[in-house]
Protein backbone atom coordinates (compact mmCIF):
# COMPACT_ATOMS: atom_id res chain seq x y z
CA UNK A 1 0.00 0.00 0.00
CA UNK A 2 2.80 2.36 -0.78
CA UNK A 3 1.88 5.97 -1.10
CA UNK A 4 -1.33 5.76 0.90
CA UNK A 5 0.41 7.24 3.91
CA UNK A 6 1.13 10.40 1.97
CA UNK A 7 -2.48 11.04 1.03
CA UNK A 8 -4.34 13.74 2.86
CA UNK A 9 -8.00 13.82 3.74
CA UNK A 10 -9.26 17.32 3.52
CA UNK A 11 -12.38 18.68 5.19
CA UNK A 12 -11.83 22.41 5.31
CA UNK A 13 -11.16 24.17 2.05
CA UNK A 14 -10.34 27.84 1.67
CA UNK A 15 -13.78 28.35 0.17
CA UNK A 16 -15.50 26.59 3.07
CA UNK A 17 -13.45 28.62 5.56
CA UNK A 18 -14.51 31.84 3.88
CA UNK A 19 -18.14 30.76 3.72
CA UNK A 20 -18.29 29.62 7.35
CA UNK A 21 -16.55 32.81 8.45
CA UNK A 22 -19.08 34.81 6.45
CA UNK A 23 -21.96 32.86 7.97
CA UNK A 24 -20.59 33.47 11.47
CA UNK A 25 -20.14 37.14 10.63
CA UNK A 26 -23.77 37.36 9.51
CA UNK A 27 -24.89 35.68 12.74
CA UNK A 28 -22.66 38.03 14.72
CA UNK A 29 -24.03 41.01 12.84
CA UNK A 30 -27.59 39.85 13.47
CA UNK A 31 -26.85 39.97 17.18
CA UNK A 32 -26.98 43.76 16.89
CA UNK A 33 -30.40 43.53 15.22
CA UNK A 34 -32.55 45.15 17.90
CA UNK A 35 -30.25 48.17 17.90
CA UNK A 36 -30.22 48.45 14.12
CA UNK A 37 -33.68 47.51 12.93
CA UNK A 38 -37.13 48.92 13.47
CA UNK A 39 -39.48 47.15 15.84
CA UNK A 40 -41.41 45.60 12.96
CA UNK A 41 -38.31 44.23 11.27
CA UNK A 42 -36.97 42.91 14.54
CA UNK A 43 -40.19 40.99 15.07
CA UNK A 44 -40.18 39.63 11.52
CA UNK A 45 -36.61 38.48 11.86
CA UNK A 46 -37.48 36.65 15.08
CA UNK A 47 -40.11 34.80 13.06
CA UNK A 48 -37.53 33.98 10.39
CA UNK A 49 -35.21 32.44 12.98
CA UNK A 50 -38.07 30.26 14.22
CA UNK A 51 -38.85 29.18 10.65
CA UNK A 52 -35.24 28.17 10.18
CA UNK A 53 -35.41 26.05 13.33
CA UNK A 54 -38.63 24.38 12.14
CA UNK A 55 -37.25 23.63 8.70
CA UNK A 56 -33.90 22.34 9.94
CA UNK A 57 -35.57 20.12 12.52
CA UNK A 58 -38.11 18.65 10.12
CA UNK A 59 -35.30 18.01 7.69
CA UNK A 60 -33.32 16.12 10.32
CA UNK A 61 -36.35 13.90 10.78
CA UNK A 62 -37.43 13.35 7.16
CA UNK A 63 -34.31 14.17 5.18
CA UNK A 64 -31.93 12.07 7.26
CA UNK A 65 -34.19 9.76 9.24
CA UNK A 66 -36.54 9.03 6.31
CA UNK A 67 -39.44 9.76 8.67
CA UNK A 68 -42.21 11.88 7.15
CA UNK A 69 -44.28 13.18 10.03
CA UNK A 70 -47.37 15.31 9.53
CA UNK A 71 -47.71 15.68 13.28
CA UNK A 72 -44.72 17.80 14.30
CA UNK A 73 -47.20 20.44 15.45
CA UNK A 74 -47.59 18.15 18.46
CA UNK A 75 -44.14 19.15 19.69
CA UNK A 76 -44.48 22.76 18.57
CA UNK A 77 -47.68 23.08 20.59
CA UNK A 78 -46.39 21.12 23.56
CA UNK A 79 -43.28 23.32 23.67
CA UNK A 80 -45.43 26.42 23.99
CA UNK A 81 -47.76 24.75 26.49
CA UNK A 82 -44.98 23.46 28.75
CA UNK A 83 -43.38 26.91 28.67
CA UNK A 84 -46.66 28.45 29.85
CA UNK A 85 -46.93 25.82 32.56
CA UNK A 86 -43.36 26.26 33.76
CA UNK A 87 -43.72 30.00 33.77
CA UNK A 88 -46.95 29.70 35.77
CA UNK A 89 -45.02 27.55 38.22
CA UNK A 90 -42.70 30.46 38.86
CA UNK A 91 -39.75 29.70 36.59
CA UNK A 92 -38.54 32.87 34.91
CA UNK A 93 -39.60 33.22 31.31
CA UNK A 94 -36.56 32.69 29.12
CA UNK A 95 -35.13 29.73 31.06
CA UNK A 96 -38.64 28.27 30.93
CA UNK A 97 -38.54 28.31 27.12
CA UNK A 98 -35.36 26.25 27.09
CA UNK A 99 -36.55 23.92 29.81
CA UNK A 100 -39.80 23.36 27.88
CA UNK A 101 -37.81 22.07 24.90
CA UNK A 102 -35.95 19.63 27.14
CA UNK A 103 -39.15 18.41 28.80
CA UNK A 104 -40.81 17.81 25.41
CA UNK A 105 -37.68 16.04 24.18
CA UNK A 106 -38.09 13.72 27.17
CA UNK A 107 -41.77 13.17 26.29
CA UNK A 108 -40.75 12.29 22.76
CA UNK A 109 -38.76 9.28 23.94
CA UNK A 110 -41.73 7.02 24.77
CA UNK A 111 -43.74 8.42 21.83
CA UNK A 112 -40.90 7.53 19.46
CA UNK A 113 -40.64 4.10 21.02
CA UNK A 114 -44.08 3.29 19.62
CA UNK A 115 -44.25 5.43 16.49
CA UNK A 116 -40.84 4.49 15.08
CA UNK A 117 -42.01 0.91 14.70
CA UNK A 118 -44.71 1.95 12.23
CA UNK A 119 -44.26 1.89 8.48
CA UNK A 120 -44.03 5.13 6.44
CA UNK A 121 -47.66 6.09 5.88
CA UNK A 122 -48.76 4.83 9.27
CA UNK A 123 -46.02 6.85 10.96
CA UNK A 124 -47.08 9.98 9.08
CA UNK A 125 -50.76 9.92 10.05
CA UNK A 126 -50.07 8.29 13.40
CA UNK A 127 -48.06 11.36 14.35
CA UNK A 128 -51.00 13.52 13.34
CA UNK A 129 -53.20 11.55 15.73
CA UNK A 130 -50.60 12.09 18.45
CA UNK A 131 -50.77 15.83 17.73
CA UNK A 132 -54.56 15.85 17.97
CA UNK A 133 -54.47 13.92 21.22
CA UNK A 134 -51.84 16.27 22.67
CA UNK A 135 -54.00 19.22 21.66
CA UNK A 136 -57.10 17.76 23.34
CA UNK A 137 -55.25 16.85 26.52
CA UNK A 138 -53.70 20.32 26.76
CA UNK A 139 -57.20 21.79 26.43
CA UNK A 140 -58.20 19.90 29.58
CA UNK A 141 -55.71 21.88 31.68
CA UNK A 142 -57.71 24.46 33.69
CA UNK A 143 -54.87 26.94 33.16
CA UNK A 144 -55.45 26.80 29.40
CA UNK A 145 -59.26 27.08 29.64
CA UNK A 146 -59.89 25.05 26.52
CA UNK A 147 -59.68 26.93 23.25
CA UNK A 148 -59.90 30.25 25.05
CA UNK A 149 -56.26 29.87 25.82
CA UNK A 150 -54.01 31.80 28.10
CA UNK A 151 -50.96 33.96 27.77
CA UNK A 152 -47.41 34.15 28.98
CA UNK A 153 -48.32 36.70 31.65
CA UNK A 154 -44.80 36.83 33.03
CA UNK A 155 -43.69 38.60 29.84
CA UNK A 156 -45.80 41.59 30.84
CA UNK A 157 -43.11 42.35 33.40
CA UNK A 158 -40.84 43.38 30.53
CA UNK A 159 -41.29 46.57 28.56
CA UNK A 160 -42.33 46.12 24.93
CA UNK A 161 -38.92 47.02 23.52
CA UNK A 162 -36.98 44.91 25.98
CA UNK A 163 -39.27 41.97 25.39
CA UNK A 164 -38.89 42.31 21.65
CA UNK A 165 -35.11 42.43 21.90
CA UNK A 166 -34.86 39.57 24.39
CA UNK A 167 -37.09 37.36 22.30
CA UNK A 168 -35.09 38.25 19.21
CA UNK A 169 -31.86 37.26 20.91
CA UNK A 170 -33.39 34.11 22.30
CA UNK A 171 -34.59 33.07 18.84
CA UNK A 172 -31.26 33.97 17.24
CA UNK A 173 -29.32 32.08 19.89
CA UNK A 174 -31.61 29.06 19.61
CA UNK A 175 -31.25 29.01 15.84
CA UNK A 176 -27.49 29.41 15.99
CA UNK A 177 -27.23 26.71 18.64
CA UNK A 178 -29.39 24.20 16.71
CA UNK A 179 -27.61 24.94 13.43
CA UNK A 180 -24.30 24.38 15.17
CA UNK A 181 -25.57 21.21 16.80
CA UNK A 182 -26.83 19.75 13.52
CA UNK A 183 -23.64 20.89 11.79
CA UNK A 184 -21.44 19.15 14.36
CA UNK A 185 -23.67 16.09 14.31
CA UNK A 186 -23.43 15.82 10.53
CA UNK A 187 -19.67 16.34 10.66
CA UNK A 188 -19.23 13.56 13.18
CA UNK A 189 -19.81 9.84 13.24
CA UNK A 190 -23.54 10.20 13.73
CA UNK A 191 -23.69 12.34 10.59
CA UNK A 192 -22.17 9.74 8.28
CA UNK A 193 -24.43 7.12 9.84
CA UNK A 194 -27.45 9.36 9.21
CA UNK A 195 -26.50 9.93 5.60
CA UNK A 196 -26.05 6.19 5.15
CA UNK A 197 -29.52 5.54 6.57
CA UNK A 198 -30.91 8.26 4.31
CA UNK A 199 -29.42 6.62 1.23
CA UNK A 200 -30.16 2.95 2.04
CA UNK A 201 -31.11 1.74 5.50
CA UNK A 202 -30.72 -1.96 4.66
CA UNK A 203 -27.15 -1.41 3.51
CA UNK A 204 -26.51 0.78 6.56
CA UNK A 205 -27.55 -2.04 8.89
CA UNK A 206 -25.32 -4.46 6.99
CA UNK A 207 -22.21 -2.42 7.83
CA UNK A 208 -23.07 -2.23 11.50
CA UNK A 209 -25.08 1.01 11.76
CA UNK A 210 -27.66 0.86 14.59
CA UNK A 211 -30.57 2.06 12.48
CA UNK A 212 -33.38 2.16 15.05
CA UNK A 213 -31.22 3.72 17.77
CA UNK A 214 -30.05 6.40 15.34
CA UNK A 215 -33.62 7.15 14.29
CA UNK A 216 -34.52 7.46 17.96
CA UNK A 217 -31.88 10.17 18.41
CA UNK A 218 -33.19 11.97 15.34
CA UNK A 219 -36.80 11.75 16.51
CA UNK A 220 -36.04 13.18 19.94
CA UNK A 221 -33.85 15.95 18.55
CA UNK A 222 -36.51 16.93 16.01
CA UNK A 223 -39.15 16.95 18.74
CA UNK A 224 -37.07 19.07 21.12
CA UNK A 225 -36.21 21.47 18.29
CA UNK A 226 -39.86 21.88 17.26
CA UNK A 227 -40.73 22.42 20.93
CA UNK A 228 -38.11 25.14 21.27
CA UNK A 229 -39.57 26.80 18.17
CA UNK A 230 -43.04 26.60 19.70
CA UNK A 231 -41.85 28.10 22.98
CA UNK A 232 -40.12 30.92 21.10
CA UNK A 233 -43.22 31.54 19.02
CA UNK A 234 -45.10 31.89 22.29
CA UNK A 235 -42.60 34.52 23.38
CA UNK A 236 -43.25 36.50 20.19
CA UNK A 237 -47.03 36.09 20.29
CA UNK A 238 -47.53 36.06 24.09
CA UNK A 239 -50.98 34.48 23.80
CA UNK A 240 -51.38 30.73 23.81
CA UNK A 241 -54.46 29.55 21.99
CA UNK A 242 -54.11 25.79 21.56
CA UNK A 243 -55.65 25.53 18.09
CA UNK A 244 -53.18 28.08 16.71
CA UNK A 245 -50.22 26.05 17.96
CA UNK A 246 -51.47 22.53 17.32
CA UNK A 247 -52.50 23.38 13.76
CA UNK A 248 -51.31 21.06 10.98
CA UNK A 249 -50.46 24.27 9.11
CA UNK A 250 -47.14 24.32 10.96
CA UNK A 251 -46.17 20.99 9.51
CA UNK A 252 -47.28 22.24 6.10
CA UNK A 253 -44.81 25.12 6.48
CA UNK A 254 -42.03 22.74 7.54
CA UNK A 255 -42.66 20.50 4.55
CA UNK A 256 -42.78 23.43 2.16
CA UNK A 257 -39.51 24.91 3.43
CA UNK A 258 -37.67 21.60 3.42
CA UNK A 259 -38.94 20.36 0.07
CA UNK A 260 -38.33 23.62 -1.74
CA UNK A 261 -34.93 24.14 -0.16
CA UNK A 262 -33.69 20.59 -0.49
CA UNK A 263 -34.51 17.52 1.58
CA UNK A 264 -31.52 15.76 3.13
CA UNK A 265 -29.01 18.60 2.83
CA UNK A 266 -27.75 20.98 5.50
CA UNK A 267 -28.10 24.17 3.51
CA UNK A 268 -31.43 23.33 1.81
CA UNK A 269 -33.85 23.89 4.68
CA UNK A 270 -32.12 27.15 5.69
CA UNK A 271 -32.53 28.37 2.13
CA UNK A 272 -36.11 27.06 2.14
CA UNK A 273 -36.90 28.97 5.33
CA UNK A 274 -35.56 32.19 3.83
CA UNK A 275 -37.59 31.61 0.65
CA UNK A 276 -40.68 30.89 2.72
CA UNK A 277 -40.06 34.05 4.72
CA UNK A 278 -39.81 36.11 1.56
CA UNK A 279 -42.92 34.53 0.04
CA UNK A 280 -44.83 35.07 3.26
CA UNK A 281 -43.71 38.67 3.52
CA UNK A 282 -44.69 39.36 -0.08
CA UNK A 283 -47.89 37.32 -0.38
CA UNK A 284 -48.92 36.49 3.19
CA UNK A 285 -51.47 39.29 3.03
CA UNK A 286 -53.19 37.67 0.06
CA UNK A 287 -54.43 35.08 2.53
CA UNK A 288 -55.68 31.86 1.16
CA UNK A 289 -54.20 32.04 -2.31
CA UNK A 290 -50.83 32.17 -0.67
CA UNK A 291 -51.57 28.91 1.15
CA UNK A 292 -52.79 27.35 -2.10
CA UNK A 293 -49.48 28.38 -3.63
CA UNK A 294 -47.52 26.79 -0.78
CA UNK A 295 -49.39 23.52 -1.15
CA UNK A 296 -48.96 23.56 -4.91
CA UNK A 297 -45.24 24.25 -4.56
CA UNK A 298 -44.84 21.35 -2.12
CA UNK A 299 -46.76 19.09 -4.50
CA UNK A 300 -44.76 20.25 -7.50
CA UNK A 301 -41.37 19.91 -5.85
CA UNK A 302 -42.25 16.46 -4.46
CA UNK A 303 -43.21 15.24 -7.92
CA UNK A 304 -40.84 17.05 -10.24
CA UNK A 305 -37.85 18.33 -8.26
CA UNK A 306 -37.43 16.10 -5.20
CA UNK A 307 -33.90 17.40 -4.63
CA UNK A 308 -35.17 20.93 -4.06
CA UNK A 309 -33.43 24.12 -5.07
CA UNK A 310 -30.23 23.57 -3.11
CA UNK A 311 -30.07 19.85 -3.87
CA UNK A 312 -30.27 20.49 -7.60
CA UNK A 313 -27.67 23.24 -7.40
CA UNK A 314 -25.27 21.15 -5.28
CA UNK A 315 -25.62 18.09 -7.52
CA UNK A 316 -24.63 20.20 -10.48
CA UNK A 317 -21.89 22.38 -9.09
CA UNK A 318 -20.60 20.58 -5.94
CA UNK A 319 -19.96 23.93 -4.26
CA UNK A 320 -18.67 22.36 -1.00
CA UNK A 321 -19.40 25.49 0.98
CA UNK A 322 -19.41 23.63 4.27
CA UNK A 323 -16.79 21.25 5.66
CA UNK A 324 -19.31 18.45 6.12
CA UNK A 325 -17.90 15.94 3.67
CA UNK A 326 -14.48 14.43 3.14
CA UNK A 327 -12.23 15.09 0.20
CA UNK A 328 -9.26 12.87 -0.52
CA UNK A 329 -6.36 14.80 -2.00
CA UNK A 330 -5.12 12.54 -4.76
CA UNK A 331 -1.94 12.76 -6.78
CA UNK A 332 -2.68 13.94 -10.31
CA UNK A 333 -2.07 10.54 -11.90
CA UNK A 334 -4.72 8.82 -9.84
CA UNK A 335 -7.68 10.97 -10.74
CA UNK A 336 -9.53 9.14 -13.49
CA UNK A 337 -10.82 10.94 -16.52
CA UNK A 338 -14.43 11.95 -16.07
CA UNK A 339 -17.09 11.41 -18.64
CA UNK A 340 -17.84 7.76 -18.02
CA UNK A 341 -20.38 8.42 -15.32
CA UNK A 342 -22.96 5.81 -14.62
CA UNK A 343 -21.81 3.34 -17.25
CA UNK A 344 -19.41 0.48 -17.31
CA UNK A 345 -15.78 1.34 -17.56
CA UNK A 346 -15.26 -1.77 -19.65
Amino acid sequence: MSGVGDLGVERWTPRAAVFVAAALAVLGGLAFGPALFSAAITERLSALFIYVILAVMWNVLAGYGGLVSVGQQAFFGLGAYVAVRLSAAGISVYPALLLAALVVGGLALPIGEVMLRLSGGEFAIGMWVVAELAHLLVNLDPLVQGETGTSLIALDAFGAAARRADTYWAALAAMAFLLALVFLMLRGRLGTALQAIRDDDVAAASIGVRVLATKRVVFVLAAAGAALAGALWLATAITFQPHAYFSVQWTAYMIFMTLVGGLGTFEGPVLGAVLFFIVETAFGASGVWYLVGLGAAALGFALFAPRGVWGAFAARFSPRLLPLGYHVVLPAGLVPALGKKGEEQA
Partner: protein
Amino acid sequence: MIFLNQILQGIFLGAYYALIACSLSFLFGVMRIINLAHGSFIVVAAFLLFVLADRFGLPPWLGLILVVPVMAALGWVLQVLVLERSLKGGLLVPLLSTFGLAIVIDNLLFEGFGADTRSLAPAIGDLAFASWTLSDDVTIGQLDAIILLAAIVVLGGLQLFLAQTRLGRAIRATAEAPDIVGLIGIDARAVYGFATAIAIALAAIAGAFLGLRATFNPYSGGMQLLFAFEAVVIGGFGSLWGTLIGGIVLGVAQTLGAFINPHGFLIAGHGFFLAVLIARLYLPPLAERLRRRGRKAVAA
Protein backbone atom coordinates in the same frame (compact mmCIF):
# COMPACT_ATOMS: atom_id res chain seq x y z
CA MET B 1 -80.45 1.61 29.23
CA ILE B 2 -78.79 4.96 28.68
CA PHE B 3 -75.57 3.02 28.40
CA LEU B 4 -77.13 0.74 25.78
CA ASN B 5 -78.28 3.77 23.85
CA GLN B 6 -74.73 5.14 23.87
CA ILE B 7 -73.42 1.92 22.40
CA LEU B 8 -76.17 1.95 19.80
CA GLN B 9 -75.31 5.52 18.80
CA GLY B 10 -71.67 4.49 18.67
CA ILE B 11 -72.52 1.72 16.23
CA PHE B 12 -74.35 4.14 13.94
CA LEU B 13 -71.45 6.56 14.12
CA GLY B 14 -69.14 3.65 13.32
CA ALA B 15 -71.13 2.95 10.18
CA TYR B 16 -70.32 6.47 9.02
CA TYR B 17 -66.65 5.89 9.80
CA ALA B 18 -66.74 2.69 7.76
CA LEU B 19 -68.12 4.72 4.86
CA ILE B 20 -65.28 7.24 4.96
CA ALA B 21 -62.69 4.56 5.65
CA CYS B 22 -63.49 1.97 3.00
CA SER B 23 -62.11 3.95 0.08
CA LEU B 24 -58.91 4.85 1.98
CA SER B 25 -58.44 1.17 2.74
CA PHE B 26 -59.35 0.17 -0.83
CA LEU B 27 -56.82 2.51 -2.41
CA PHE B 28 -54.13 1.38 0.01
CA GLY B 29 -54.99 -2.23 -0.78
CA VAL B 30 -54.59 -1.68 -4.51
CA MET B 31 -51.68 0.76 -4.75
CA ARG B 32 -50.05 0.70 -1.28
CA ILE B 33 -50.56 4.45 -1.05
CA ILE B 34 -52.05 6.23 1.95
CA ASN B 35 -53.76 9.19 0.33
CA LEU B 36 -53.36 12.10 2.75
CA ALA B 37 -55.82 14.13 0.64
CA HIS B 38 -58.53 11.54 1.22
CA GLY B 39 -60.47 13.63 3.73
CA SER B 40 -60.24 16.67 1.49
CA PHE B 41 -61.91 14.80 -1.37
CA ILE B 42 -64.75 13.83 0.96
CA VAL B 43 -65.24 17.50 1.82
CA VAL B 44 -65.09 18.50 -1.86
CA ALA B 45 -67.99 16.14 -2.54
CA ALA B 46 -69.92 17.56 0.42
CA PHE B 47 -69.48 21.07 -0.97
CA LEU B 48 -70.54 20.03 -4.46
CA LEU B 49 -73.71 18.51 -3.02
CA PHE B 50 -74.22 21.63 -0.93
CA VAL B 51 -74.06 23.85 -4.01
CA LEU B 52 -76.50 21.64 -5.90
CA ALA B 53 -78.93 21.72 -2.99
CA ASP B 54 -78.46 25.37 -2.13
CA ARG B 55 -78.50 26.89 -5.61
CA PHE B 56 -80.58 24.43 -7.59
CA GLY B 57 -82.71 22.87 -4.92
CA LEU B 58 -81.44 19.40 -5.79
CA PRO B 59 -81.74 17.03 -2.81
CA PRO B 60 -78.47 15.22 -1.98
CA TRP B 61 -79.84 11.84 -3.11
CA LEU B 62 -80.29 13.23 -6.61
CA GLY B 63 -77.17 15.36 -6.35
CA LEU B 64 -75.10 12.23 -5.91
CA ILE B 65 -76.11 11.11 -9.38
CA LEU B 66 -74.19 14.11 -10.71
CA VAL B 67 -71.44 14.27 -8.10
CA VAL B 68 -70.34 10.64 -8.14
CA PRO B 69 -69.29 10.67 -11.81
CA VAL B 70 -67.58 14.04 -11.37
CA MET B 71 -65.61 12.73 -8.40
CA ALA B 72 -64.76 9.55 -10.29
CA ALA B 73 -63.33 11.69 -13.06
CA LEU B 74 -61.36 13.68 -10.47
CA GLY B 75 -60.02 10.38 -9.18
CA TRP B 76 -58.80 9.42 -12.61
CA VAL B 77 -57.08 12.78 -12.93
CA LEU B 78 -55.53 12.31 -9.49
CA GLN B 79 -54.06 9.00 -10.59
CA VAL B 80 -52.69 10.32 -13.87
CA LEU B 81 -51.28 13.59 -12.57
CA VAL B 82 -50.15 12.76 -9.04
CA LEU B 83 -50.23 9.16 -7.90
CA GLU B 84 -48.64 7.54 -10.93
CA ARG B 85 -45.64 9.83 -10.67
CA SER B 86 -45.54 9.49 -6.89
CA LEU B 87 -45.37 5.71 -7.09
CA LYS B 88 -42.10 5.94 -9.00
CA GLY B 89 -40.55 8.37 -6.54
CA GLY B 90 -39.88 6.11 -3.57
CA LEU B 91 -41.45 5.89 -0.15
CA LEU B 92 -41.64 9.55 0.84
CA VAL B 93 -43.05 11.08 -2.35
CA PRO B 94 -46.65 9.76 -2.18
CA LEU B 95 -46.95 11.14 1.35
CA LEU B 96 -45.46 14.53 0.52
CA SER B 97 -47.39 14.97 -2.71
CA THR B 98 -50.80 13.97 -1.34
CA PHE B 99 -50.21 16.18 1.71
CA GLY B 100 -49.42 19.11 -0.60
CA LEU B 101 -52.55 18.31 -2.57
CA ALA B 102 -54.65 18.36 0.61
CA ILE B 103 -53.38 21.85 1.43
CA VAL B 104 -54.25 23.01 -2.08
CA ILE B 105 -57.76 21.54 -1.98
CA ASP B 106 -58.61 22.78 1.52
CA ASN B 107 -57.55 26.32 0.79
CA LEU B 108 -59.23 26.41 -2.60
CA LEU B 109 -62.43 25.39 -0.83
CA PHE B 110 -61.86 28.17 1.67
CA GLU B 111 -61.34 30.60 -1.17
CA GLY B 112 -64.58 29.51 -2.79
CA PHE B 113 -66.83 29.04 0.23
CA GLY B 114 -65.30 30.95 3.13
CA ALA B 115 -65.04 29.75 6.69
CA ASP B 116 -68.78 29.18 7.25
CA THR B 117 -69.88 25.85 8.57
CA ARG B 118 -72.38 24.13 6.27
CA SER B 119 -74.71 21.21 6.43
CA LEU B 120 -76.81 19.24 3.97
CA ALA B 121 -79.41 18.47 6.63
CA PRO B 122 -81.78 21.31 5.62
CA ALA B 123 -82.01 19.77 2.18
CA ILE B 124 -83.67 16.59 3.47
CA GLY B 125 -86.24 18.21 5.74
CA ASP B 126 -87.64 16.13 8.60
CA LEU B 127 -85.51 13.12 7.85
CA ALA B 128 -82.54 14.87 9.41
CA PHE B 129 -84.00 14.53 12.89
CA ALA B 130 -86.82 12.00 12.60
CA SER B 131 -86.37 8.99 14.83
CA TRP B 132 -87.97 5.86 16.16
CA THR B 133 -88.31 5.68 19.92
CA LEU B 134 -87.76 2.15 21.19
CA SER B 135 -87.97 3.03 24.88
CA ASP B 136 -87.50 6.08 27.07
CA ASP B 137 -83.75 5.99 26.69
CA VAL B 138 -83.29 4.28 23.36
CA THR B 139 -84.00 6.09 20.12
CA ILE B 140 -82.85 5.36 16.62
CA GLY B 141 -82.44 8.24 14.19
CA GLN B 142 -83.86 7.44 10.77
CA LEU B 143 -80.89 9.02 9.08
CA ASP B 144 -78.59 6.91 11.26
CA ALA B 145 -80.42 3.81 10.10
CA ILE B 146 -79.93 4.93 6.50
CA ILE B 147 -76.23 5.43 7.11
CA LEU B 148 -75.86 1.95 8.56
CA LEU B 149 -77.75 0.56 5.62
CA ALA B 150 -75.62 2.59 3.21
CA ALA B 151 -72.41 1.33 4.84
CA ILE B 152 -73.55 -2.26 4.46
CA VAL B 153 -74.66 -1.69 0.87
CA VAL B 154 -71.43 0.11 -0.08
CA LEU B 155 -69.13 -2.42 1.58
CA GLY B 156 -71.17 -5.34 0.29
CA GLY B 157 -71.35 -3.81 -3.17
CA LEU B 158 -67.62 -3.23 -3.24
CA GLN B 159 -67.02 -6.79 -2.11
CA LEU B 160 -69.37 -8.12 -4.77
CA PHE B 161 -67.83 -5.91 -7.44
CA LEU B 162 -64.32 -7.12 -6.60
CA ALA B 163 -65.36 -10.76 -6.53
CA GLN B 164 -67.77 -10.99 -9.42
CA THR B 165 -66.90 -8.52 -12.15
CA ARG B 166 -64.19 -8.62 -14.76
CA LEU B 167 -62.82 -5.24 -13.67
CA GLY B 168 -63.05 -6.21 -10.00
CA ARG B 169 -60.98 -9.33 -10.57
CA ALA B 170 -58.46 -7.34 -12.61
CA ILE B 171 -58.14 -4.89 -9.72
CA ARG B 172 -57.56 -7.70 -7.23
CA ALA B 173 -55.04 -9.34 -9.51
CA THR B 174 -53.20 -6.04 -9.99
CA ALA B 175 -53.21 -5.34 -6.26
CA GLU B 176 -51.58 -8.72 -5.64
CA ALA B 177 -49.02 -8.71 -8.41
CA PRO B 178 -48.79 -5.50 -10.46
CA ASP B 179 -45.71 -6.80 -12.31
CA ILE B 180 -47.45 -9.95 -13.47
CA VAL B 181 -50.83 -8.79 -14.77
CA GLY B 182 -49.33 -7.41 -17.98
CA LEU B 183 -48.49 -11.00 -18.91
CA ILE B 184 -52.17 -11.90 -19.08
CA GLY B 185 -53.13 -8.77 -20.98
CA ILE B 186 -54.06 -6.38 -18.18
CA ASP B 187 -52.85 -2.78 -18.35
CA ALA B 188 -51.88 -2.06 -14.73
CA ARG B 189 -51.90 1.71 -15.30
CA ALA B 190 -55.48 1.65 -16.54
CA VAL B 191 -56.47 -0.53 -13.59
CA TYR B 192 -54.90 1.96 -11.20
CA GLY B 193 -56.87 4.71 -12.95
CA PHE B 194 -60.15 2.81 -12.49
CA ALA B 195 -59.32 1.96 -8.88
CA THR B 196 -58.57 5.58 -7.98
CA ALA B 197 -61.75 6.68 -9.77
CA ILE B 198 -63.75 4.18 -7.73
CA ALA B 199 -62.07 5.22 -4.48
CA ILE B 200 -62.84 8.90 -5.03
CA ALA B 201 -66.39 8.11 -6.16
CA LEU B 202 -66.85 6.26 -2.86
CA ALA B 203 -65.46 9.33 -1.10
CA ALA B 204 -68.32 11.26 -2.74
CA ILE B 205 -70.87 8.99 -1.06
CA ALA B 206 -69.04 9.47 2.23
CA GLY B 207 -69.16 13.22 1.60
CA ALA B 208 -72.95 13.10 1.29
CA PHE B 209 -73.28 11.50 4.72
CA LEU B 210 -70.71 13.84 6.24
CA GLY B 211 -72.93 16.73 5.18
CA LEU B 212 -76.19 15.03 6.21
CA ARG B 213 -75.30 13.89 9.70
CA ALA B 214 -73.01 16.74 10.74
CA THR B 215 -71.59 20.06 9.66
CA PHE B 216 -68.49 20.68 7.62
CA ASN B 217 -66.20 23.51 6.56
CA PRO B 218 -63.27 23.72 4.14
CA TYR B 219 -60.85 22.42 6.76
CA SER B 220 -62.91 19.41 7.86
CA GLY B 221 -60.90 17.09 5.65
CA GLY B 222 -58.05 16.50 8.07
CA MET B 223 -60.32 15.16 10.77
CA GLN B 224 -62.14 12.88 8.31
CA LEU B 225 -58.77 11.50 7.22
CA LEU B 226 -57.84 10.79 10.83
CA PHE B 227 -61.13 9.03 11.63
CA ALA B 228 -60.92 6.99 8.44
CA PHE B 229 -57.32 6.05 9.17
CA GLU B 230 -58.11 5.08 12.74
CA ALA B 231 -61.01 2.90 11.64
CA VAL B 232 -58.81 1.20 9.05
CA VAL B 233 -55.95 0.55 11.47
CA ILE B 234 -58.24 -0.76 14.21
CA GLY B 235 -60.04 -3.02 11.72
CA GLY B 236 -56.86 -4.17 9.96
CA PHE B 237 -55.62 -2.75 6.66
CA GLY B 238 -57.04 -4.24 3.50
CA SER B 239 -60.05 -6.02 4.98
CA LEU B 240 -63.37 -4.42 4.00
CA TRP B 241 -65.54 -5.92 6.72
CA GLY B 242 -62.70 -5.31 9.15
CA THR B 243 -63.14 -1.65 8.26
CA LEU B 244 -66.77 -1.79 9.37
CA ILE B 245 -65.76 -3.44 12.65
CA GLY B 246 -62.96 -0.89 13.09
CA GLY B 247 -65.34 1.98 12.42
CA ILE B 248 -67.87 0.66 14.91
CA VAL B 249 -65.24 0.05 17.58
CA LEU B 250 -63.99 3.61 17.09
CA GLY B 251 -67.52 5.02 17.17
CA VAL B 252 -68.40 3.15 20.34
CA ALA B 253 -65.13 4.22 22.02
CA GLN B 254 -65.93 7.83 21.16
CA THR B 255 -69.53 7.81 22.38
CA LEU B 256 -68.55 6.06 25.58
CA GLY B 257 -65.76 8.59 26.04
CA ALA B 258 -68.28 11.38 25.61
CA PHE B 259 -70.52 9.64 28.12
CA ILE B 260 -67.76 9.73 30.73
CA ASN B 261 -66.55 13.27 30.12
CA PRO B 262 -67.83 16.09 27.90
CA HIS B 263 -64.37 16.36 26.29
CA GLY B 264 -63.99 12.61 26.16
CA PHE B 265 -65.36 11.98 22.66
CA LEU B 266 -62.21 12.65 20.63
CA ILE B 267 -59.78 11.81 23.41
CA ALA B 268 -61.27 8.35 23.81
CA GLY B 269 -61.17 7.76 20.06
CA HIS B 270 -57.55 8.81 19.61
CA GLY B 271 -56.50 7.16 22.85
CA PHE B 272 -58.15 3.89 21.89
CA PHE B 273 -56.48 4.02 18.50
CA LEU B 274 -53.04 4.46 20.09
CA ALA B 275 -53.79 1.65 22.51
CA VAL B 276 -54.57 -0.62 19.57
CA LEU B 277 -51.28 0.40 17.92
CA ILE B 278 -49.31 -0.38 21.06
CA ALA B 279 -51.07 -3.70 21.50
CA ARG B 280 -50.46 -4.60 17.87
CA LEU B 281 -46.75 -3.80 18.19
CA TYR B 282 -46.02 -5.42 21.52
CA LEU B 283 -48.46 -8.32 21.84
CA PRO B 284 -47.32 -10.47 18.86
CA PRO B 285 -43.61 -10.42 19.86
CA LEU B 286 -44.64 -11.24 23.41
CA ALA B 287 -46.79 -14.11 22.19
CA GLU B 288 -43.91 -15.32 20.00
CA ARG B 289 -41.53 -15.26 22.95
CA LEU B 290 -43.98 -17.18 25.09
CA ARG B 291 -44.50 -19.68 22.27
CA ARG B 292 -40.74 -20.19 21.90
CA ARG B 293 -40.34 -20.61 25.63
CA GLY B 294 -43.18 -23.12 25.63
CA ARG B 295 -41.57 -25.06 22.81
CA LYS B 296 -38.24 -25.13 24.62
CA ALA B 297 -39.97 -26.40 27.74
CA VAL B 298 -41.59 -29.16 25.71
CA ALA B 299 -38.30 -30.04 24.03
CA ALA B 300 -36.51 -30.18 27.37
